[in-house]
């Protein structure tokens, strides 16, 4: 896997050690040890309120932990701000669709390409963006990857929900991540759109490591190489889908909810 070449041999791409965070009197995360190997699709599941989103916020840098460390691609990123972690190769999508509704799909992705270190500085004051063909050519490529080639010129606000989710994926891809952090990509999509999204993620997984947070268990078991289960801020189990399916603790946590 190309993603692993930068880091030491056998070291995981993402390595979270002893992560803890308290909000007021509540332990949101307790001593979480978690790793993502380069090339895998690693799903994080757990009941509502288990701390999945909080965990994602810590990994992406939106929140800072009370204690613990986060290493990514061989670098200690524990103290880095969000945009620095993006620079290191982490990209995320949001639970709630988070695209620029007033811009066209192509403009949205071009904005993501423009933010890349290799695209040069954005302190350019004179040349109109629309004449920077390199940005838009690259952006068109990412839209093609997520199946939105025909929607390039559509204003993002007019796209369907599923298309907006796909657009968001294209934006994440455009940052050229080593790892994609997908926060509930299926949330709010209908069955048809879900199926298309699963296919899309399967396709992307061939090129990039994915950390997937998802409620849709069918999707999780179809996509994941490994699954970790977070309950009440603690990681209770990590393993292959089969192992997790048969874990007694997991069954208890879900009370037959999904499994």
């Amino acid at each position: 896997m190309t993603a692993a070449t930068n880091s030491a041999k056998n070291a995981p791409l993402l390595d979270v050690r002893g992560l803890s965070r308290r909000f007021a009197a509540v332990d949101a995360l307790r001593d979480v040890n978690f790793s993502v190997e380069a090339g895998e699709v690693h799903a994080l599941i757990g009941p509502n309120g288990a701390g999945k989103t909080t965990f994602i916020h810590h990994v992406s840098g939106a929140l800072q932990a009370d204690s613990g460390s986060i290493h990514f691609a061989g670098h200690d990123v524990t103290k880095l701000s969000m945009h620095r972690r993006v620079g290191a190769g982490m990209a995320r999508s949001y639970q709630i669709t988070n695209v620029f509704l007033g811009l066209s799909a192509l403009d949205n992705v071009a904005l993501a390409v423009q933010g890349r270190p290799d695209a040069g500085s954005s302190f350019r004051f004179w040349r109109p963006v629309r004449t920077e063909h390199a940005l838009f050519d690259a952006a068109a490529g990412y839209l093609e990857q997520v199946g939105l080639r025909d929607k390039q010129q559509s204003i993002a606000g007019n796209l369907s929900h599923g298309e907006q989710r796909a657009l968001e994926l294209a934006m994440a891809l455009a940052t050229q991540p080593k790892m994609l952090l997908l926060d509930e990509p299926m949330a709010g999509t209908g069955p048809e759109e879900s199926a298309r999204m699963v296919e899309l993620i399967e396709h992307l997984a061939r090129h990039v490591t994915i950390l997937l947070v998802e409620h849709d268990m069918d999707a999780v078991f179809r996509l994941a190489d490994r699954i970790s289960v977070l309950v009440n801020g603690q990681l209770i189990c990590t393993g292959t889908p089969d192992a997790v399916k048969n874990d007694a603790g997991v069954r208890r946590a879900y009370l037959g909810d999904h499994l």
Partner: protein
Amino acid sequence: MAFYRPARWQKPFAFTVLCALLALPGLMEIFDQSYYIGFATRVLIFALAASSLNLVLGFGGMVSLGHAAFFGIGAYVAAICQQGGIVEGLLAFPLAMGVAGLFALLVGALSLRTRGVYFIMITLAFAQMVYYLFISARAWGGDDGLPLSERMQFAGLSLTDDKVLFYVALGLLTAIMLLLGRLADARFGRTIQAIRENETRMEALGYPVFRYRLVCFALGGAIAGLAGALLANLTGLASPALLQWTQSGTLLVMVIIGGVGYLYGGVVGALVLLLLEEFLLGFFAHWHIVLGLLLIGIVLFAPKGVAALFDKHRSQP
């Protein structure tokens, strides 16, 4: 708030207005209304100041209530230069921009770490600090302000002639509007507008949000400094009243009346407000009551113009 995109009629329209303005001083003289050359110059200068705030507020999405500080600093730098014997505008104006811009950089570096109500209060407080600094500094005239014994030159031409000052102001405003128009459509403009729309998303795309905001804020400050230097030449005085926070409020009102985030919002707003002032003040000395009621009316009954800016897609954690 949509991203800025120039309307097709905008360029020809602006060009027509520019041509008309070029003919204005000559016409005024023919009709023996030379007084209005000074008034028109004043409008141009405030258009420049309001446009600089529009860059910060409309494009950058930062509700700064301390913009008068940069405006006033520009005026004082011009007056200090003139008293110190630097009478060439080509030297003094960039200096005014530099000092105002540097101060904006400092204020921005401290205040841009905060958001919302906090940011508004902090910019206001720093502006007030500048105000107090100048009124208590006897070397710079204290309460009375610092007069210019005569107007400066620009590229060797004396600004003492009202017409020359008018054309210089017009030229500089045109140049700055051209820059702002290009900038809004270039990478930088895209970036700051996207940050205005959704800060968190931009951070998640790898943009160092703080840095772009700061540069936008400082650039706005520098342009305000240029406007201040011009105004000091027009009125012959760097007055502490320029630094007063009500001046910041006035600039804000201009931008809002003209249209937040529209390229020519500041220009239109300055024209409308100064015209209102010029003519209503003659009829009714307490015209501020009318203006105040008008503004409240805008907020309550035409909120789209004002509110559309920040309502949608606020950053979410």
